[in-house]
């Protein structure tokens, strides 16, 4: 609550970066990169999200408890994704050699 006021310059710079990244992601999506289209789009989205979280939501300067909460949120999302997808990814696997 008592953090020093952030200069407008910082906010403007973040805003500019976000706009630039938006343009980049649209531009990149027009290129033929195969699987990298996906990687590029997601990387850019993650960078943009991080900028918003860190600067606009000020997690950069937040208490470690807030950081912990943000981390926990992401971690639990990851649990959901990893375990659901691991089922789908391994459905086609064969039992392999009878290892028992």
């Amino acid at each position: 609550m008592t953090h020093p006021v952030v200069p407008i310059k910082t906010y403007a710079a973040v805003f500019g970066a976000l706009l630039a990244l938006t343009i980049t992601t649209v531009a990149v999506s027009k290129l033929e990169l195969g699987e990298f289209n996906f990687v590029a789009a997601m990387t850019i989205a993650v960078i943009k999200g991080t900028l918003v979280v860190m600067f606009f939501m000020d997690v950069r300067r937040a208490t470690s408890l807030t950081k912990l909460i943000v981390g926990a949120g992401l971690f639990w999302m990851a649990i959901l994704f990893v375990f659901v997808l691991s089922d789908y990814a391994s459905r086609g696997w064969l039992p392999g050699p009878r290892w028992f």
Partner: protein
Amino acid sequence: MGDSEATLAVHEPGLKHHFDDSAQQFQSSTLGMWVFLVTELMFFGGMFGGYTVYRNMYPDAFASTSHFMNVPIGAINTGVLIFSSFTMVMAVRSAQLGQKKVLIAFLIFTLLLGCLFLTLKYVEYHEKWVDHHIPGPGFQYADTRYFHQAQILFFLYFAMTGMHAIHMIVGVGMLIVLISMAARNRFTQAWYTPVEMIGLYWHFVDIVWIFLFPLLYLIGHTK
């Protein structure tokens, strides 16, 4: 921290009497808001999970649907939301500096941008309606190979952007409340917690869109 201190503290603006002091109250509000945002994250997470599963199951169909997404509108809307996040953060800053007029101006600006986003979203939804891309009995898809699979994608599209739009509408409503509170001089340099909290919410909604845009509009565009 005794009772006498708590009584003294009542003079602090906005302090509820079950808190010891406004620092504790502010800490509680912030923590509460962040925990709430985590629940929001899990809420959208369920849909993103479903999306990922089906995208892996039907990559070709999902790629083909991206051609029916209005990328210009999507991109402009991304810009609009980012801009609104910027104005929101400026509003918080003005509140922090106690500049009431500027605060109201930025809040109104944010509100307008939010409405602009929703209007453009409406235009898009209308387009889908005209093209019979609304999942359900009336659904049509030019490429009959992908009829069912495309329908699932559009289902997810409407569920995800629809939920996002509902969050935007709630946000707009809360901005109106903030504006009226600001107009009634409810905020001081020492107490502007609601502005800050709604700000966090607004940025969160922005972030959701930052991920929705590439996932729904861009990926597979080259195929």
